[in-house]
């Protein structure tokens, strides 16, 4: 019991004031709960090693890549309401339009989202979440957090994830009228499909890093800030070939600035 209490209040000791470089590093790492985070991280690792990763490997062996793509396309299409709402909340109206178009095309011609027909038509997919939205609104991420089961996060992204779990209209529908099995199936399939997608990348990080925990922390932070930069500057999605356009440069600039 005392051990658990010590764990919960476990904080990393900041370096002394007379070592400015060590201090700058400590702040940049921004992981004051590191001792606790490491414990949760290794518990997650155990679950991953004995449960989730084997499932993902089995899924890769059993289902050919064509089938796996159909499943991940469908999962992605079902997230469209969340992407759309966040595009709007971020003020990215062009992206919101793209999400809407993709949903319409993929749900109809793509047979309930099984095929991403919009991408070859020049409307590539993107993902927006509420953590990103809050970042666009100027909310800082806060210290690094490792969540049980969900892994690397921070207070802002954790709140975003929680908010989304209440905002997903499909989840509302599935949680009523004896459709709970479908709700859990969606969650389970999403977890396995996502884990399969990261199989090689995570194996690589684990194999090559000296300290898996801190390599993952750095990767999560960098990936997240790249996504947020993308959400703040959506022009990279919207005008992929601006330099090849016949429009004068100032028209394009105005257009992208308006978003």
């Amino acid at each position, binding site marked *: 019991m005392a051990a658990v209490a010590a764990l919960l209040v476990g904080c990393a000791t900041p370096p002394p004031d007379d070592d400015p*470089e*060590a201090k700058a*590093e400590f702040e940049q*790492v921004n992981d004051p709960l590191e001792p606790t985070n490491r414990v949760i991280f290794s518990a997650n690792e155990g679950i991953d090693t004995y449960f989730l990763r084997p499932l993902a490997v089995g899924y890769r062996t059993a289902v050919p*890549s064509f089938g796996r*793509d159909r499943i991940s396309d469908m999962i992605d299409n079902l997230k469209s309401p969340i992407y759309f709402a966040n595009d709007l909340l971020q003020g990215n109206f062009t992206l919101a339009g793209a999400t809407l178009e993709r949903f319409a095309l993929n749900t109809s011609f793509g047979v309930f989202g099984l095929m991403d027909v919009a*991408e070859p038509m020049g409307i*590539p997919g993107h993902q927006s979440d509420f953590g990103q939205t809050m970042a666009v609104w100027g909310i800082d991420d806060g210290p690094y957090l490792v969540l049980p089961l969900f892994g690397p996060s921070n207070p802002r992204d954790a709140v975003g994830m929680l908010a989304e779990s209440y905002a997903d209209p499909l989840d509302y529908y599935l949680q009523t009228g004896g459709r709970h099995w479908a709700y859990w199936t969606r969650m389970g399939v999403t977890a396995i499909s996502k884990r399969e997608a990261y199989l*090689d990348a995570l194996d*690589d990080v684990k*194999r*090559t*890093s*000296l*300290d898996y*925990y*801190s*390599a993952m*922390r*750095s*990767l999560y932070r*960098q*990936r997240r*800030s*790249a*996504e947020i*930069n993308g959400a703040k500057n959506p022009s990279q999605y919207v005008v992929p070939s601006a330099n090849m356009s016949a429009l004068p440069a100032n028209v394009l600039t105005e257009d992208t600035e308006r978003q």
Partner: protein
Amino acid sequence: MIKMLSRSTLLRATFTLLVVLTLGTTPSHAQTDDAARKFVGALAQRAITTVADRQISQIERDERFRKLFVSAFDIPEIGRFVLSRYWRAATPDQQQEFLSLFEDITVLTWAKRFQDYNGESLETVSASKDGDHSWMVDSHILRNQGPQVPVQWRLRESDDGSFRVVDIIVEGVSMAITHRSDYASAMQSNGGRIDGLLSIMRTKLDQLKAAG
């Protein structure tokens, strides 16, 4: 007449001086955006040709890959960045051993990544100068299926005008920054001693070698 002569001499001298100054400030082997872009394209092509060459033995292939990698990447520069403030605290011997281990680990890591090569190709998009001797090249990896992967290359132009890679940024994730964070943590968990880090690196290298 004397006045005229001296004036034209003065003019000529000034002109000569200007030319010398201009040439002096602009190195004769100054690189261009296009050269930076082509360097990355050629490097990717050579790496693919090397790993895809089935005419030579695995040992020969590894050796060629290592030579290519060491010549194209500025490993001492990356190593110094990764070790950051600990670099200055290290003795020359420790620095030397760190760089040698770092080179071996990096080469093996990338050799393994290329072993899974499956027909991907690299398309360079653009390059821009973003510092005195620093260039950023935008590219993406084209795969048989699935979306393209954006990759940025940070190059440094050395004094002889040749390029060296100092960082690769895949989907917004910098290899150098990830290594730096990883190595700093490994070091701290060993009491902040370089020798502790070197010993973890030796163990890691043995693991990588054993895994092939």
